[in-house]
């Protein structure tokens, strides 16, 4: 501990003190430093006088606690509290500069142990005594500024720029700091340029570097400006807010995923096979317009479908490779094993998509989830609900209505929490929920059964336009059921409006998953069986193409009728000025459904991502036009960032996972057809890989590590068990860490509450002490308005000036050590 300050406090015992809280003197065993500080104050009070200044008449100084226990402070006290070191961020420039000085110091000294003087504020004031001893002078603003400049010089250029950009100062001050913190080396170099033999070349080099730097900046900004639909997205955000914008950003994300998947497919499969076309079949089918809808006809024998790809090794010396045998590799030709390439490329494309998807989902999740963040929804509503992006008057009115509704609904929820429903009401609600759930389950099962039987019926027929019947039925069922679920959700009247939306999404999702599951069984189970001597992979690829096209047509029709016609009806017939709302949930689910179909079909039709890209491009413009013309922003509150996380999670979990399972099953278990495609002679598609590994094993020493690796990792199950066990252990550890963090947060909150009470106690005590002093002085010198200054410095940190006039005083400036709460 520091040396004790030998001061004596000479405060007379006032009568009212007995029933108040225990005075600091009684707690002296615990709060040693407070005791000493107050002693020191009082001694100096006794030594020097009090300077008194006239007080403005309307300022009182009430610090009586309110009935609920929260105090009201006078404006003067508030201003002092606001100038405390922990509160001065943003208030005074000196405080900003000293704060950033501290941050820069920490940044620079990160590798070494932190100095005790720079320790983070802690509750125990005893530790702060070190601070009191070190800081003997209160630094002036200029000194602080020069210290900051010195610290900034020690950082690297990028860090310095980043630091300066982050400061909440005006641009002129930032410029001053930046200019003055150019490192002395640079200044010296500049001085050298004025004279000396190297001046010409160094100047040239410097100007070259500058030109390159500017060019780089121009390129980056050019790339930034060339982002697709930048202006359109700004327009949508300004007119409709962040929630509708999140749908269009999701569409853009899907576009990026499809491009990412298409590039390896184009490079390694489509391009290569297009350079070595197989013999055309006879008769060559002619192109009628129906191909765009059915995907058959002249599309069948193109790079678009699986059947086009050859099953042998392509090399340049023989352009037309036959099914049987291989051409002798000529000199200088690069053999390209097509089956292997097909398997690996599709696998690699899926793997890359998986990694990107999981990364973006976890990144988005990490941003939107905070430990213990389920509470605090009220502050968020008040402070975050105004979307500053909105620039149109109409949209701002919609926002106001939406915020009003949101606040009222939140209040209703709080009311309900305070006075929960009676048992009767709860029973009724449970019954309604059960009924709704049963209805949805029934609808789902009914739709799945309908698709099952219809597909069986269609298996018998099926040429030409009749093939479109199954996709039409499925799309119609999806659309009808989603409208039904939306209506059901509004009827059910949930407590929380966000829950309503989530329920509707869940139900639609379950329906779509069930229908897609039935279809997958239909394709991989029944179709394979019936088309064994045909080319079933081509058929499945064409089916998925048809599904994509019909789904697109239905989305367009939905936009047309759901939005345009509804708006016309509501304006003309019903004479309402209300436009229909843009239903974000349903639209996003449609996007996810389309993407699932693409992923399901990539194995059988490598160009399907290109079709999806075209679809998404069209969809963007159609939806945007329909939105601008016909819709308004949704009235329901949408937490846009949470929604983006939910969308990405839905894209990853049911959608991508299902497609990956389908792919794995098709590759591992299903016998490929024997008349077409790159795997026609094998038992499963996966065999292409194992056959190659065996060949490598037999071949010789050069590639022998690969079969060994293959044997160790893939065929040996021990490795998989080990990896899964490690993964589970890591997940468990992370859960424990989060639990620990929650406990720490509770403890810290408790501590802050205690600090707050300490602060109130101290302020009250100090006020009462000096009120006592003032009364005492008034009694002694009642007529004279003595002006004296109490200036107290204890190790430079505590200065306390009391200015008093005519029986009242105010605390004008009180800088306490930052250990005080």
């Amino acid at each position, binding site marked *: 501990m520091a040396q004790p300050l030998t001061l004596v406090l000479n405060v007379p015992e006032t009568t009212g003190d007995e029933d108040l809280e225990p005075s600091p003197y009684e707690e002296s065993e615990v709060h040693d430093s407070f005791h000493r500080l107050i002693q020191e104050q009082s001694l100096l009070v006794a030594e020097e006088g009090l300077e008194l200044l006239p007080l403005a008449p309307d300022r009182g100084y009430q610090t009586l606690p309110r009935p609920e226990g*929260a*105090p009201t402070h006078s*404006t003067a006290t508030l*201003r002092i509290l*606001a*100038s405390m070191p922990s*509160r*001065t*961020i*943003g*208030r005074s420039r000196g405080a900003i500069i000293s704060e950033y000085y501290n941050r820069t110091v920490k940044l620079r000294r990160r590798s070494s142990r932190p100095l005790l003087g720079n320790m983070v504020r802690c509750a125990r004031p005893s530790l702060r005594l070190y601070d009191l001893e070190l800081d003997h002078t209160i630094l002036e603003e200029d000194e602080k500024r020069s210290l900051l400049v010195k610290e900034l010089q020690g950082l690297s250029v990028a860090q310095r720029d980043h630091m*300066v*950009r*982050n400061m*909440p100062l*005006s*641009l002129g001050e930032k*410029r001053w700091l*930046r200019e003055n913190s150019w490192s002395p080396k640079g200044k010296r170099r500049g001085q050298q340029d004025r004279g000396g033999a190297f001046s010409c070349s160094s100047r040239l080099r410097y100007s070259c570097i500058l030109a390159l730097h*500017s060019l780089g*900046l*121009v390129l980056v*900004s050019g790339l*930034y400006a060339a982002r697709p639909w930048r202006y359109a997205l*700004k327009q949508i*955000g*300004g007119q409709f807010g*962040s929630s509708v914008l999140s749908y269009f950003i999701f569409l853009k994300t899907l576009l990026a995923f499809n491009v990412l998947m298409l590039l390896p497919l184009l490079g390694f499969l489509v391009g290569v096979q297009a350079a070595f076309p197989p013999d055309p079949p006879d008769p060559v089918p002619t192109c009628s317009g129906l191909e765009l809808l059915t995907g058959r006809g002249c599309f069948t024998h193109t790079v678009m479908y699986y059947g086009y790809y050859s099953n042998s090794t392509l090399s340049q010396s023989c352009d037309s490779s036959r099914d049987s045998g291989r051409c002798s590799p000529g000199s200088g030709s690069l053999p390209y094993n097509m089956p292997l390439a097909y398997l690996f490329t599709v696998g690699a494309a899926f793997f890359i998509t998986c990694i990107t998807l999981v990364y973006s989902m976890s990144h988005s999740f990490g941003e939107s989830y*905070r430990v213990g*963040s389920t*509470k*605090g929804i*009220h*502050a*968020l509503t*008040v*402070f*975050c*609900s*105004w*979307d*500053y*992006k*909105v*620039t149109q*008057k109409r949209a*701002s009115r919609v926002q*106001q209505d939406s*915020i*009003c509704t949101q*606040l*009222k609904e939140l*209040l209703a929820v*709080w009311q309900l929490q305070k006075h929960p429903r009676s048992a009767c009401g709860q029973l009724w609600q449970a019954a309604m929920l059960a009924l709704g759930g049963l209805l949805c389950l029934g609808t789902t099962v009914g739709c799945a059964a309908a698709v099952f039987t219809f597909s069986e019926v269609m298996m018998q027929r099926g040429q030409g336009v009749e093939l479109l019947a199954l996709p039409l039925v499925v799309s119609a069922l999806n659309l009808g059921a989603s409208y039904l679920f939306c209506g059901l959700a509004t009827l059910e009247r949930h407590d929380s409006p966000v829950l309503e939306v989530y329920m509707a999404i869940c139900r639609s999702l379950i329906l779509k998953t069930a229908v897609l599951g039935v279809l997958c069984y239909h394709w991989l189970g029944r179709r394979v069986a019936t088309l064994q001597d045909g080319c079933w992979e081509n058929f499945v690829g064409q089916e998925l193409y048809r599904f994509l096209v019909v789904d697109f047509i239905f989305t367009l029709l939905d936009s047309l009728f759901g939005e345009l016609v509804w708006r016309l009806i509501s304006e003309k017939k019903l004479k309402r000025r209300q436009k229909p709302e843009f239903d974000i949930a349903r639209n996003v689910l449609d996007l996810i459904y389309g993407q699932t179909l693409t992923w399901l079909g990539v194995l059988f039709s490598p160009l399907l991502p290109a079709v999806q890209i075209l679809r998404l491009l069209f969809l963007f413009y159609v939806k945007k036009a329909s939105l601008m013309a016909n819709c308004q922003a949704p009235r329901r509150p949408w937490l846009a*960032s949470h929604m983006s996380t939910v969308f990405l999670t839905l894209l990853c979990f049911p959608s991508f996972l299902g497609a990956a399972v389908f792919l794995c099953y098709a590759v591992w278990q299903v016998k490929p057809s024997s008349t077409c495609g790159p795997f026609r002679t094998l038992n499963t598609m996966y065999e292409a890989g194992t056959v190659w590994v065996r060949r490598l094993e037999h071949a010789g020493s050069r590639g022998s590590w690969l079969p060994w690796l293959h044997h160790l990792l893939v065929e040996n199950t021990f490795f998989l068990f080990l990896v899964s066990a490690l993964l589970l252990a890591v997940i468990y550890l992370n859960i424990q860490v989060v639990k620990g963090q929650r406990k720490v947060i509770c403890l810290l909150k408790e501590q802050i*509450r205690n*600090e*707050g*009470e300490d*602060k109130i106690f101290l302020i009250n005590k100090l006020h009462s002490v000096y009120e006592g002093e003032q009364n005492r002085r008034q009694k002694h010198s009642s007529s004279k308005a003595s002006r004296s200054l109490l200036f107290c410095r204890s190790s430079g940190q505590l200065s306390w000036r009391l200015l008093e006039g005519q029986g009242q005083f105010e605390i004008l400036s009180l800088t306490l050590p930052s250990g005080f709460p």
Partner: protein
Amino acid sequence: MGQQCLRYQMQWEDLDEYQALTFLTRNEILCIHKTFLKLCPSQKHYKEATLTMDQVSSLPALRVNPFRDRICRVFSHNGVFSFEDVLGMASVFSEQACPSLKIEYAFRIYDFNENGFIDEEDLQKIVLRLLKSDDVSEDLLMDVTHHVLSESDLDNDNMLSFSEFEHAMAKSPDFMNSFRIHFWGC
């Protein structure tokens, strides 16, 4: 020319410097420069010209914002806006700005009585501005303020200090999304 500033092109060095000191991209800086030139009085270089708070309030980006007077007050110096003040304001509201900067300025904007805290009176003013209608009941106001304080006021002094505000906003990614203006005229 007429009402516009003399059309001084921005120098390369100035543009580079603004890019280094703010979070704005090159295109955004040029766009704001264009908008500023349209509004400022004639016969003056853009670095010396100033805009009044009314002129900045009537920018399309701020016209419908219920807090535009507070924004203008926080970002202006001596009641007027220089070009650099406008740039500083756009930088804080830009997409690339870091959360700590946005939170600091948001605190200053929402502190209506400028006493360093957001107290009940400030919260009530915020809610009134957000709703902007006359039929807001007293009960609603009191309830909302009471709930906000009970959730975010950690040391029980009935007002939000900067660290409490920061704590509440750091938990919410929606704050970053909504405290953004990216359309300054082009």
